């Protein structure tokens, strides 16, 4: 099943660029959806993965983060409203062996949190006893490989106002990532600055 996803990546139009010690890869799929990934050049860790879909009425949408943090500042006037930065901030940041989510600005002690897997709905729910925080999220990587979600793979810890939820990557996912890294190494990357600019 993981092969399907790899094949989709293979068929997408790709651009690769190395900039600021990051290998940035941009995929454009057949339906116009875009995906951008950023990998650390030295450790090959996934730092950012974001998606941009076409709107129903056309036009480009905005980037939606799957992994990593939105780095662009948000314009409050254009947005109308935005979450205050004192709120819990949910960010996914994977390690080699685990999918990992970090929720900052959560001061409550560890026994306040419940992390439950809902295999039939394919998502994980973080809830709080004091009803201050609630988050429902899925693991797109598992969806792509058509793997189920398993409660026993979940661990969580709390330190420095941050709740860290980890999910052990299944063997299939590790295998897929290894294959993808091999492919990625073969990709020709242009260095920052030498943009192909042939005057026409």
């Amino acid at each position, binding site marked *: 099943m993981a092969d399907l996803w790899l094949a989709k990546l293979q068929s997408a139009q790709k651009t690769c660029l190395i900039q600021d010690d990051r290998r940035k890869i941009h995929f454009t799929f057949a339906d116009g959806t875009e995906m951008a990934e950023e990998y650390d050049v030295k450790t090959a860790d996934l730092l950012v993965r974001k998606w941009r879909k076409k709107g129903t*009425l056309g036009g480009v949408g905005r980037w939606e983060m799957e992994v990593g943090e939105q780095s662009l500042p948000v314009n409050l006037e254009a947005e109308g409203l935005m979450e205050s930065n004192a709120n819990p901030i949910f960010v996914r940041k994977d390690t080699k062996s685990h999918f990992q989510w970090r929720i900052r600005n959560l001061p409550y002690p560890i026994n306040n949190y419940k992390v439950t897997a809902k295999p039939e709905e394919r998502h994980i729910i973080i809830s709080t006893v004091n*009803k201050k925080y*609630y988050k429902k999220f899925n693991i797109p990587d598992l969806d792509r490989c058509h793997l189920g979600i398993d409660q026993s793979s979940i661990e969580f810890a709390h330190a420095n106002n941050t709740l860290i939820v980890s999910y052990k990557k299944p063997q299939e996912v590790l295998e897929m990532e290894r294959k993808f890294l091999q492919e990625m190494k073969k990709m020709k990357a242009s260095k920052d600055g030498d943009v192909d600019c042939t005057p026409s």
Partner: protein
Amino acid sequence: MKVFHFHHFINNLKFIYHQPTAEKVQEIREVTRIERIGAHSHIRGLGLDDALEARQVSQGMVGQIKARKAAGVILEIIKEGKIAGRGILIAGQPGTGKTAIAMGMAQALGTDTPFTSIAGSEIFSLEMSKTEALTQAFRKSIGVRIKEETEIIEGEIVEVQIDRPATGTGAKVGKLTLKTTEMETIYQLGQKMIESLTKEKAQAGDIVTIDKATGKITKLGRSFTRARDYDAMGAQTKFVQCPEGELQKRKEVVHTVTLHEIDVINSRTQGFLALFSGDTGEIKSEVREQINSKVAEWREEGKAEIVPGVLFIDEVHMLDIECFSFLNRALESDMAPILIMATNRGITRIRGTQYTSPHGIPIDLLDRLVIISTSPYEEKEIKQILRIRCEEEDVEMTDDALTVLTRIGMDTSLRYAIQLITAASLVCRKRKGSEVDMDDIKRVYSLFLDEFRSTQFLKEYQQEFMFNEMVPDEMETEAS
């Protein structure tokens, strides 16, 4: 400390001195920001009953029974939505309610049917060509009802906090705390959001949804947990359950967008490319074609529905011959809206030609139109309209004053009489009266000239004005 006292004293003094005016200004500002009283803001519909018979006085409409009935028939055609590209011309003397009828139609159609209102002279701009402006107006009048997935925030308001800056001027800062049964989040608010929250009168305990893309706030009702302070609210208050789960949700909503909006979404050049494109606000015809075929595709798949709306062109005699021939062609398209035009001209020159034609519109276009004509108001009707306007502007007036004003309306024009209402009410307020009486009317009648008296005056003192050496019939040739 002393300095402070002194300052305080000065402030106090100022405060006392300025209090009445300052308060008034403040009050007026609050009102104007929400809704201003326009020339036709008393119109709420066409004032027809179910059998399309016009009531004498209803929904702000008075008289013009025949024209209103005709407009009602047109309205039914629009509501059925099957027939595209019909043209209607409302013709009549100045001040006989042509624009009012068009506004009434817009009101009766409701917010879901696109209604675009432009003045004939609006299309002459250096920014874009005449036909482009007309095409945009046409496309603004065609709606597409489509399902779209949007991100909404749905929750119960815990707290709204809006702070004015200490200096009194500048941007307000706002914070909104929302909760569901499971969570709570604080949002920072932009200016627009603060305004719409104030307008909606949203307060703690309300359940609201906020459309993230458009910023539209909808009040769903009061939270059940607030049911005990029932006395403090009206009987029609709806109570709803506090939402569950996450505050932000993705929801499929059906809404109406106009073709023009889709054009704009798809034609915006992005990033550095915008630098080279020289954005004139014109939309490429390829983009339009692409969208037309896309919309046709959606329609076939059952994803979208076309809502033909209304394009109203006021002062249509201001269009020139090119525009008229464009209209001829545009009305034939199956994507054309219902076109309503209004004019107060008789037989006159068609702009851009030497030919004269009825209403200043070429015969071939007139042939494609149905014409509704309005007739001058009778005394009774003028009185009624003035009474409605008094109500709309919150002016109390004695019967005598109203009779005098009606007389003025008959002798001069309805518009002049309406203008006097506002002026007279101000005069009345200055003399601390509660009702506008005859003297107030007389006073403003002597203060402000109407068109006829002003002409009289000019004729008398023609020699003393500038450029008077111009021979009258020379002026005439220039004007025609």
